[in-house]
């Protein structure tokens, strides 16, 4: 019960942090609520890491006091700085057209989708709460570290074994938080990530393509077999997918609307993805490259710098702690990087696995099939913002290939295990492209003639290719 209160406080902390730093002009109340849990847990575990690193013990009382105090301080700051309305009404960003009427008054499709999403999230929660933690990596790494941190109130044990110190700590500190607050099932963290991801995805697609597309594509993401499975499994892949996928969504919002705060939020979320799982750098590069090209085309050279700065602000302290305090390298250093860059047969094997995964509808669902068909139906154009998203997805696939190809571990060992799970991170991004491509937007207009902005933001219409 206390753990549940703690997680609610974490979500409130995240909501208030977003309200204070981003405000309702950048994020609607719904988005701040949906993002609150993930951002709150990511930032609060970072604060826990900072406290443990300087020797502060994290008792039940100190955690609750910290959460309440931080939330109260953020609430007061938001009240003073942004005014009382910051907590209330849904904001319509000045730079974007108003949300369509059916977003605020969901139609039958949206209602059916919401019911389906709640049912899927509750079923994942039931499975997560029923089974104890048993998955290999979860036992030996994430939950072990969480349990050890909760008992020892220290990070010193990470030095005993390079393996334990090689992975970032977000999920382990989440487990520690639940355990310190008398919780026995840290698995509860994962269905909450799943529900948050779906809510953020729905709200973003609703803004970009209308309620009908949002309803359909969110259910497609939610029913991706591997994603639902990971909603009940205490591995880092779903949290990583949340931070990376949602981060990419806000970077795309910056591409569409040029709202700098969205880019900063994208950078923060990308940084939190690096706080979740090792080896995120090549994957983040898949977003940073299109950001840089887009920014240079728009003569905004500071944009990629700010994006990478936000990312580095989160990643750098952990890397420095690993290097100079724990004296271990990150996991890719532990397992090694190939000295020889060219190995044709290895590249072929990696690409064979990739194509196999992309076509495996029993694990990755139909998202990839839809992505490639959408790509064929929509010729790339500079003026179409969704082209940038297609670029991020394709570069993401290349980054995945590089991640598998460049390590010293055998492809046959790595690809079918952690490689396939890792590929989950691109599912929301590919689905977002399908949902915002010109074909999908036109389809939404054809099915709902009065869908307002969904139809107005067309690549061929004035302003559509912003």
């Amino acid at each position, binding site marked *: 019960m206390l753990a549940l209160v703690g997680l609610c406080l974490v979500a409130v902390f995240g909501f208030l942090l977003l309200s204070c730093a981003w405000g309702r002009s950048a994020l609607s109340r719904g988005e701040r609520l949906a993002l609150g849990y993930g951002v709150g847990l990511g930032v609060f575990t970072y604060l826990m890491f900072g406290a443990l690193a300087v020797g502060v013990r994290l008792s039940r009382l100190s955690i609750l006091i910290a959460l309440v105090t931080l939330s109260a301080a953020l609430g007061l700051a938001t009240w003073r700085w942004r005014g009382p309305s910051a907590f209330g009404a849904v904001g319509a960003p000045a730079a974007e057209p108003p949300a369509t009427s059916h977003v605020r008054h969901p139609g039958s499709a949206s209602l059916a989708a919401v019911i389906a999403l709640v049912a899927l999230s509750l079923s994942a929660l039931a499975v997560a709460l029923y089974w*104890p933690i048993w998955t290999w990596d979860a036992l030996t790494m994430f939950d072990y570290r969480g349990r050890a941190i909760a008992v020892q109130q220290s990070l010193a044990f990470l030095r005993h074994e390079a393996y334990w110190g090689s992975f970032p700590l977000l999920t382990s500190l989440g487990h520690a938080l639940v355990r310190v607050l008398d919780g026995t099932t840290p698995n509860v963290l994962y269905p909450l990530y799943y529900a948050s991801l779906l809510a953020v995805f729905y709200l973003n697609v609703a803004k970009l393509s209308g309620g009908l597309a949002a309803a359909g594509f969110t259910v497609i993401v939610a029913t991706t077999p591997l994603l639902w499975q990971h909603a009940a499994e205490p591995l880092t892949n779903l949290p990583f997918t949340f931070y990376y996928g949602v981060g990419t969504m806000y970077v795309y919002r910056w591409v569409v609307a040029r709202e700098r705060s969205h880019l900063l939020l994208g950078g923060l979320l990308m940084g939190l993805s690096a706080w979740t799982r090792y080896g995120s750098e090549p994957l983040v590069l898949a977003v940073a490259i299109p950001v840089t090209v887009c920014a240079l085309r728009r003569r905004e050279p500071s944009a990629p710098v700010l994006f990478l700065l936000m990312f580095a602000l989160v990643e750098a302290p952990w890397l420095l702690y690993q290097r100079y305090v724990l004296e271990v390298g990150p996991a890719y250093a532990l397992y090694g990087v190939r000295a020889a860059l060219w190995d044709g047969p290895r590249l072929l094997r990696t690409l064979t696995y990739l194509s196999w995964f992309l076509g495996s509808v029993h694990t990755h669902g139909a998202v990839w*099939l839809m992505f490639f068909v959408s790509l064929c139906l929509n010729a790339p154009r500079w003026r179409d913002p969704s082209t940038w998203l297609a670029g991020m997805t394709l570069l993401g696939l290349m980054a995945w290939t590089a991640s598998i190809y460049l390590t010293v571990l055998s492809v046959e060992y790595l690809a079918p295990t952690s490689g396939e799970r890792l590929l989950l991170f691109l599912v929301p991004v590919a689905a977002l492209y399908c949902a915002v491509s010109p074909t999908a937007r036109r389809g939404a207009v054809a099915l709902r003639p009065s869908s307002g902005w969904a139809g107005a933001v067309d690549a061929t219409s004035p302003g559509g290719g912003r």
Partner: protein
Amino acid sequence: MRLTASRSIATLGAGGLLVNVFFTSTSMYKELSFIGTHPQLSRDEKMRLKVGGWVLDLTAFVNDQSPPESVIMIPPQRTAPWDVTGHFEMISYYVYPRRVVHGPANHSETAIREYLRSHPEITHMIITSEGTLWPDIPPLPGDEVHLLKPGWGIAKVGR
């Protein structure tokens, strides 16, 4: 042409949704029907279903026979023949808060005794017959051997 493309993507979306719903609802049904028919299983029973019983029996026995501050030596490698009992991280999880260390790569009695002499912090040795008996050495006076069954158990190192 555009409307045809939009209809294609709408049809594909509906088809994709059906494919996803089919596979996810199959796993969901399997999971939820199991939970519905086995609501009273204990944590231990659930773990046995997922990870197998023998490692849980062995580590529970180790926990019973050694104090929490023990340092336990396990086989030297987590590859065959000691895939599980030589798995440092996994055994560490099950016997927590006891500490775990790997034994020497050389399995001879002399090497193991020398290793124990040079690592006085080691208080116990796991005894495993996973593939091959380890440590395959006779106990010395002062060693306390506790067996769960022949070839499986824990020995307290006599000092």
